[in-house]
C-alpha cells in the first residue's frame, strides 16, 4: 500500500513538474526588471514554503510524541525534518545564485538570509543528534525539544521580511499581500509548482519513514536474537 502511495505521489508530482517547467520556460514572459533570472523564484519560494511547512508538521508530531510517548510520531517527525532540510538547502542555494546576479554578491547577513541559514544549521544539528544517541526514548525526547526550539527560528524566517528592513524582497504571494505584487499567471504557476514540490516531498517522506520503520524492526529483531 505504502509503495503504491509513494509511486502515486511521485508520478503526479513529476507530471505536474513537467507541465510547470513547460509553462516556466516556454509560456510565461520574462520579468521586466530581472529578465530571465526571475524564473528561479519558481523553485526558490516553493522549496522554502514546503521546507517550513515540514518543520511545523514535525513540531506538531514532536509535541504529540512528548504528550503520548508514541515513537512512531518521533520517527515520522525525523523523516519530515530530513526532507525539509533538503528543501531548505535548495532554497538557500537558489537564492544565493539569484543574489549573485541581482545584488552582485552571493550572500549578505540580512535577517531573512541569516535566520534561514540558522534554521538549516539547527535542523542539521537535529539530524546529527539523532545519529549520536542510541537509546530511542532519550533520542526522541531530545529531538522533540530541538524541533520545538527550531520552529521558533522558522517563525523568524517566515516573518522577518515583514518585521525587519531587509535586502531580501518582501512578500509577493496574494495570500500575504492581498494581491497586486505578482502577475496572476505567474502566481498561478508558482502555486502549482509548490503543489508539485509538496507531492515530491511527501513521496520522499514516505520512503524515509518506511526506512525508519525497517530500522526499528531490525532493532527489535536484534534484541530478540540476543535474548
Amino acid at each position: 500500500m505504502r509503495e503504491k502511495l509513494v509511486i502515486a505521489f511521485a508520478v503526479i508530482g513529476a507530471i505536474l513538474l513537467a507541465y510547470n517547467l513547460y509553462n516556466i520556460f516556454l509560456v510565461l514572459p520574462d520579468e521586466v526588471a530581472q529578465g530571465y533570472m526571475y524564473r528561479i523564484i519558481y523553485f526558490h519560494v516553493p522549496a522554502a514554503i514546503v521546507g517550513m511547512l515540514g518543520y511545523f508538521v514535525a513540531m506538531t508530531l514532536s509535541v504529540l510524541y512528548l504528550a503520548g510517548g508514541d515513537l512512531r510520531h518521533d520517527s515520522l517527525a525525523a523523516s519530515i525534518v530530513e526532507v525539509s532540510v533538503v528543501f531548505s538547502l535548495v532554497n538557500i542555494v537558489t537564492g544565493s545564485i539569484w543574489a549573485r546576479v541581482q545584488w552582485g554578491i552571493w550572500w549578505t547577513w540580512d535577517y531573512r538570509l541569516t535566520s534561514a541559514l540558522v534554521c538549516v544549521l539547527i535542523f542539521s544539528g537535529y539530524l546529527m543528534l539523532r545519529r549520536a544517541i542510541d537509546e530511542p526514548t532519550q533520542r526522541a525526547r531530545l529531538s522533540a525539544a530541538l524541533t520545538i526550539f527550531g520552529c521558533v527560528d522558522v517563525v523568524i524566517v517566515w516573518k522577518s521580511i515583514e518585521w525587519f528592513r531587509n535586502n531580501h524582497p518582501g512578500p509577493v504571494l496574494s495570500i500575504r499581500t492581498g494581491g497586486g505584487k505578482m502577475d496572476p499567471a505567474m502566481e498561478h504557476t508558482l502555486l502549482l509548482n509548490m503543489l508539485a514540490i509538496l507531492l515530491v516531498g511527501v513521496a520522499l517522506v514516505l520512503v524515509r519513514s518506511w526506512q525508519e520503520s525497517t530500522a526499528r524492526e531490525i532493532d527489535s529483531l536484534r534484541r530478540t536474537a540476543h535474548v
Partner: protein
Amino acid sequence: MDARNFTFMFYGFLAAWLIVLVYVVSLARRGARLSKELEDVKHLVATTHKN
C-alpha cells in the same frame, strides 16, 4: 547581461535538481543497505531459534 542572466538561471535550476538527486540517491542506497541488514538479522534470528 541576458546571456549571463540565462547562465546563472541555469546554474540555479541545476543546483536545485542536483541537491534533490543526491538526496534521492542517498535514500536509495540507505534503503538497499537496510533491506540487506533486515535479511541478515532475520537469518540470524532463525539460526538462533533453531539452535
